[in-house]
């Protein structure tokens, strides 16, 4: 492992700290846009759930809450390892930080694998969104439930994949010595993003899987 490079802040900031604070505010604002985007989609789903409660219940019966619960635990654990990664890089423990981030990446991978199993089993039963729905179940508007299911979990899954890519990227940068106790903006930014992706799932799991 190479030595930690000293970070030079960009010319338009007064200090490295100034740059760090500004970057963090930018990341948080970006998270706001994510919340609004998922929020709108969830709003659509909630309207559907209120106007067609029977359909939502019938749809949820096809989902396996065991898979959902397992994935929830996986993502919660990954948030812990992500937080540890930030903690270690601030102490200059780059090896430990990389291991923590590696575990986070692994959790993301497990999550996506479980999601893949869930998707394929549904697709094999013809439980597809909207017009592509071919299952024999005759509950009124059941295809709509799966439209929301695939849109919500698909958009979330896409975010997990993007998060995994970002984690891989900062692991490489840590390896190159770009981050350390004097500069960890990128690690923390990706961490905030990963926690948000986790948080979105915390909402999706009960709203989709645990419908009574």
């Amino acid at each position: 492992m190479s030595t930690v490079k000293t970070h030079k802040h960009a010319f338009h900031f007064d200090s490295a700290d100034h740059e760090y604070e500004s970057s963090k505010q930018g990341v948080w604002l970006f998270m706001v846009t994510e919340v609004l985007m998922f929020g709108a989609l969830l709003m659509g789903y909630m309207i559907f759930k209120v106007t067609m409660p029977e359909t939502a219940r019938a749809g949820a019966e096809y989902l396996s809450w065991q898979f959902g619960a397992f994935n929830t635990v996986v993502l919660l654990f990954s948030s812990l390892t992500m937080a540890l990664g930030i903690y270690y890089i601030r102490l200059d423990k780059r090896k430990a930080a990389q291991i923590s981030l590696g575990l986070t990446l692994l959790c993301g991978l497990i999550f996506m694998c479980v999601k893949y199993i869930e998707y394929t089993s549904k697709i094999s039963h013809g439980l597809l969104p909207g017009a592509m729905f071919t299952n024999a179940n005759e509950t009124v508007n059941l295809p709509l439930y799966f439209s929301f299911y695939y849109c919500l979990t698909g958009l979330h899954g896409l975010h997990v994949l993007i998060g995994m890519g970002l984690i891989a990227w900062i692991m490489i940068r840590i390896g190159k010595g770009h981050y350390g106790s004097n500069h960890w903006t990128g690690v923390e930014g990706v961490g905030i993003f990963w926690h948000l992706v986790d948080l979105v799932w915390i909402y999706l799991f009960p709203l989709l899987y645990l419908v009574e």
Partner: protein
Amino acid sequence: MGAAGENYINCAKGLKSWLITLDHKRIAILYVISVLTFFFVGGIAALGIRLELFSPGPDVMNADTYNQFMTFHGAIMVFMVIIPGIPAIFGNFFLPIMIGAKDVAFPRLNLLSWYLLMFGAIVSISSLLFNGVDTGWTFYTPYSIKGSAGVINMTLGAFIMGMSSVLTGLNFIVTIHKLRCPGMTMKNIPLFVWALYSTAIIQVLATPVLGITLLLLVAERVMGIGIFDPALGGDPVLYQHFFWFYSHPAVYIMILPAMGVISELITTYSKKTIFGYTAIAYSSLAIAAVSFFVWGHHMFVSGQSEVAGIVFSFLTMLVGVPTAIKTFNWVATMYKGSVTLKSSMLFAMGFIFVFTIGGVTGIMLATAGMDVHFHDTYFVVAHFHYVMVGGTLFALMGAIYHWYPKMYGYMYNELLAKLSFVFIFIGFNVTFFPQFILGANGMPRRYFDYIPEYTELNRISTMGSWLIAIGFVIGLVTIIQGFIRKEKAPANPWGSKTLEWTIQSPPTHHNFESTPSVSGGPYEYR
């Protein structure tokens, strides 16, 4: 510091130095070129629409072509001209300088915004390859699900341009919060900056909702997910709710920066401290806040409940309060000021005149009972053109002239600029005032044809559109002639007090020789 005479334009050479620039001023120039190009295309479409409506029946194009002209005019003008217009050009160029910063907070993100706008525009315009889009710029379902496949390109393009808008807004918020120079408290920032701040809040909060809506529409087209499709159990009115939850705040994305420009112009050319700085600043924030709760006034006849109609009607009228506060403060600033009628000031005064008409007719449309009569008539068309053209484009023209010496380092011909105002102002009123009468008489908007009784007013309106076109051509000539004439601009030709006028014209790459520090408000005239 560089050699004498060095500035941001000549400090690096070649096309590549422009395409990979991270300098906020150079990025602003990239926006100038692209937005003016889009404006030209959208303007041609507008002239085509008016030409077709010169007489009843088909004249120069068939109904399908007309619908595409109408859609392209709307989509280009909204997504590519007036949303990026003032914030991306003048916000980029002057926001950092006005608060004493060397650049925006995230220069690379800033360049990415421009590339996203270009990419989105190309994707949008590629819809022409699929028979064109004829849904209007609102892409209402279920028609947009059944019609031309070009809707996919158009909405994907709008989604990408939305990302550009979000990133610009995000960049501005952080810049305003974090990069103000010593002494530049939030009470000392120019009102244009306050306006950009309010705009950025709307961009960041509202645009993601449009993003997901347009993505759902694309998924609808590609996979038939049915969320907005009544045939599959979906709800087309939900689309309208989602769409207007963004698109109504979006009209304030378009007008707030314009109001900021007007505040700068009025105080500069009246040589008087702005009247009610705090009131104007907070009214921008108030407009941004109220904007999120008024979307239902687009849907008075879409089958929403009576209670919702009454609530949205009331909330919409609230927008009139902060807007009136601004207008009265501008007029009060001019009162007993030393008003010089430069071309920019003419546009600012023109703005107050036409924008007031646009605003008051907005209150008429907000009244649910009246809207049932006016809904989807030319009255609505006239109203939003009075606000968007008479408001935003007038401010854009005023801003172009006001900041021309600073941005390019040359003076323009004042007489030509004034002439462009005369043509645009008269042409604008001749074009759009008759449309209020047409709408009140019941002529529906978006139609290709009309009954012969409407011919006379339509002819007047079409002739007005030619006057506007002449006005904008004169404006373009003014700009180009200024480049050719090369009359060097002094640092502060208008005697303005904000920070951008304390540095050389055009500014150096780093804006300031040393970080400035301020001790008072931005408009200490008298």
